[in-house]
């Protein structure tokens, strides 16, 4: 409420020449209005981004990206953190078109088919050539912002001959155990399920039956599995090729390494999209463009520990990582259509 409004209302009240009370009421009403419009014109537009928890944490990409984007757009970026990718989709489903979200960031390709089916997303309008992935990107609704490969991570002080293929893992010595995650409750778990399916096709059930002997336990989530792994409970765990990078870069620990499989590694591509009901569509599109620009992507490797989707400098630790020979991925529609039956097949094979 600047001085302009104050002097204006005073003279207006004096001209009307009403009683004391009337003058004060008019003053108050006009001041209130002034505050409202004044405030509105001073307030920057707000972009609300729903994302998963570790993205916004202090060590995640969130804070740096927020700072960089706000400088560029003269707006305010609000993050809303949800547990993980699955929870993101469910939250959006629950909120429907009344959702405050402008951007949903953090789904992966196993969820994009269902996400598209909700009809709550709007086309981003960016060309697929904006990003460089092992395959061409053609999804009109979603844009990737990072990707990674699932891999078996092992403790090199305990495993002298790591498996060099999925087949070797499945048929290897049952005494050398691996920790895996449950596909029903965890993304890496689902990733391994799809990986085995891609490589073995209809023979997946048999593969699981053979692998079962090597599985120490199937945990609820990645945290439990990796926590038990670092405690030394089993020498192998299902994680990402980029996991060792953290240990090398931050802890100076080189004992953890990822096993490169000859059949290739299943990919996890994380995407973002804008909502159809967004109140800031221009700003949302701008954010998506920002997302595939160096300003955003430079933060990804050292905070999210995944690969960027454009060419930015990678930290030294990444150079020591296993480079997958072949990226494996199911088309989102295939993954969505078959997931239920494949999970049931897994349950059946693992329960005997």
């Amino acid at each position, binding site marked *: 409420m600047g001085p302009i409004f104050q002097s204006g209302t005073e003279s207006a009240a004096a001209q009307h020449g009403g009683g004391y009370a009337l003058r004060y009421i008019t003053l108050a009403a006009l001041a209130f209005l002034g505050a409202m419009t004044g405030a509105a014109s001073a307030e920057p537009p707000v972009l609300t981004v729903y994302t998963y*928890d*570790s993205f*916004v*944490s*202090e*060590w*995640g990409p*969130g804070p740096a990206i927020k700072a960089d984007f706000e400088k560029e757009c003269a707006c305010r970026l609000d*993050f*809303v*953190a949800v*547990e993980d990718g*699955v*929870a993101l*989709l*469910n939250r959006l*489903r*629950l*909120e429907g078109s*009344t959702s*405050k979200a402008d951007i949903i960031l953090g789904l992966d390709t196993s969820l994009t088919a*269902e996400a598209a089916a909700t009809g709550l997303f709007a086309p981003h309008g960016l060309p697929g050539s904006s990003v460089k992935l092992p395959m061409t990107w053609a999804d009109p609704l979603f844009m990737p912002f990072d990707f990674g490969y699932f891999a078996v991570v092992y403790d090199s002080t305990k495993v002298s001959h790591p498996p060099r293929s999925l087949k070797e893992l499945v048929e290897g010595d049952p005494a050398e*155990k691996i920790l895996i995650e*449950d596909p*029903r*409750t965890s993304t890496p778990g689902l990733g391994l399920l799809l990986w085995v399916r891609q490589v073995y096709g209809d023979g997946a059930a048999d593969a699981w039956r053979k692998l*079962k002997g090597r*599985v*120490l*336990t*199937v*945990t*609820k989530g*990645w*945290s*439990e599995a*990796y*926590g*038990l792994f*670092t*405690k*030394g*409970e*089993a020498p192998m765990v299902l994680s990402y090729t980029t*996991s060792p990078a*953290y*240990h090398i870069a*931050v802890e100076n620990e080189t004992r953890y390494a990822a096993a490169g499989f000859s059949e290739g590694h299943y990919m996890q591509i994380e995407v973002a999209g804008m909502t159809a009901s967004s109140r800031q569509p221009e700003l949302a599109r701008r954010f998506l463009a920002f997302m595939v620009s160096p300003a955003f992507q430079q933060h990804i490797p050292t905070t999210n*520990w995944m690969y960027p989707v454009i060419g930015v400098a990678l930290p030294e630790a990444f150079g020591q990582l296993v480079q997958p020979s072949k990226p494996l991925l199911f088309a989102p529609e295939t993954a969505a259509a078959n*997931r*239920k039956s494949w999970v*049931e097949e*897994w*349950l*059946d094979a*693992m*329960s005997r």
Partner: protein
Amino acid sequence: MAGLWPGAAALAALLLLIGGAFVALLSSTGELDPAGLLADRYLRHVVLFTLGQAGASTLLSVAAALPVARALARRSAFPGRTMLLRLFGLPLVMPTLVAILGLATVFGETGWLNRLGQAAAMQPLHFLYGLSGILIAHVFFNLPLAVRLLLPAWQSVPTETWRLAAQLGMRSRHLFRVIEWPLLRQVLPGIAGVIFMLCFTSFAVVLTLGGGPRAATLEVAIYQALRLDFDIARAVELSLMQVALCGLVLVLLRAWRREVPLSASFDRPAARPDLGPWLGRAGDGAAILGAAVFIGLPLAAVVSAAVAGSPGTVLIEERLWRAALRSIAVAGGAAAVAMALGIGILSAQRELRARRGRPRAAAMLEVSGSLIMVVPPLVLGVGLFVLLSRVADVLALGLGLVVAVNAVMGLPYVLRIVGPSMERTVGRYERLCLGLGIRGWNRLRLVEWPASRPAVGLAAALVAALAAGDLGAIALFGTEDNETLALLLYRLIAAYRMEAAAVVAGVLLALSLGLFVVIERGVGRRGQA
């Protein structure tokens, strides 16, 4: 009439919350198909497994807790007894992830036990991943709780009874059969019910330590239905099935219960006549030591991991202490709300039973209050979200909602812990209060509160510590700005920062212990069990 309205209000609030959550869920989905549930073979297996492991865990926990509780009741004054009892509050309130890692450090493949065994050239034992692992974990969580719930039963034996027993020359086993067992029969069904429900709804433990998908509880199926398949109808059906099954077990347990008329004594507490024999002493010592070691080792594992995780760098982080303050705030809020709700319901129960002579209505009230424990937190959270998002901005409610959910989930503990204590005062003072016109608030304040202080202290401390370590509600409603210690812990692990996470786990453990000490001493007075 005056006595009923606080209970009615509490119940109404609860029904609104939970019922509203269910209704909101149901309204956003299609029809239910209960028959289809039974046709699913895997589901049948899951239900049977859930019942089986819960039953086995309960039996094991209670059977192991009885000798320990008895030993503690008999040896009522040895150095460290109070601290031991406070430590017994910790296993249940720890975040499950922390407990699992602690158990793995001790009992796991490369755990302390196996390393000791290796040094002694023994074969390594593999028992942590499988049904045995689930049982170990459940006993770890529930044995301490059972011990703390059983102890007050011994305290309620009148002095004259011990004197009579001494005069008749009763030995320890006579005492147990004639005096202690009938008392236990009164409290065991309630305690077993709580433990059964806890084990029935156990989720992360069963999945992680179970070894494979053969070991899965109904909660896993509900989780899958709601999260992965977004099949709300199925999630609701399964939740209702869970509530129905547990309700059945609770009713069955109640049927086994025997009321024991207690005459209170004005006299000073007398010593039991069977404390002398050295065999008894040795047995008691072994029981207490065994329990202390079994519970203490995993706790020590958590502490040692915290110490090894370079605590110096983590403890100076401002973020840690802000999260700790929020945890304390949530803990206090949840405890206060849970106590208010619980006391309201208990007064209504007392009204129904004593004044209106409707014991079955009172029992139903108690059972329904306890059944909250088996409503899956995920279902409750999602239902609440759907319910409230139509009315308010859920994000703005933030921590308030976390407090509410934790209060509701802590309510069954209040009912189970404070309930028996209030029952005892009813028996003694009902007529006197009626005659003097001591009613409602006065009665709570002057009569029931002083008599129930230790129980109230334990219940409040338990709910507070549970809320401090809660990862369920906060994961659903937590945001960037209202991070609690548990959420911080979870985020650290997800970011590979295992060592820092270990330090935060240590801080959380210390905080929970602090809550027990402060609340029990402040509220409970005299630190009696």
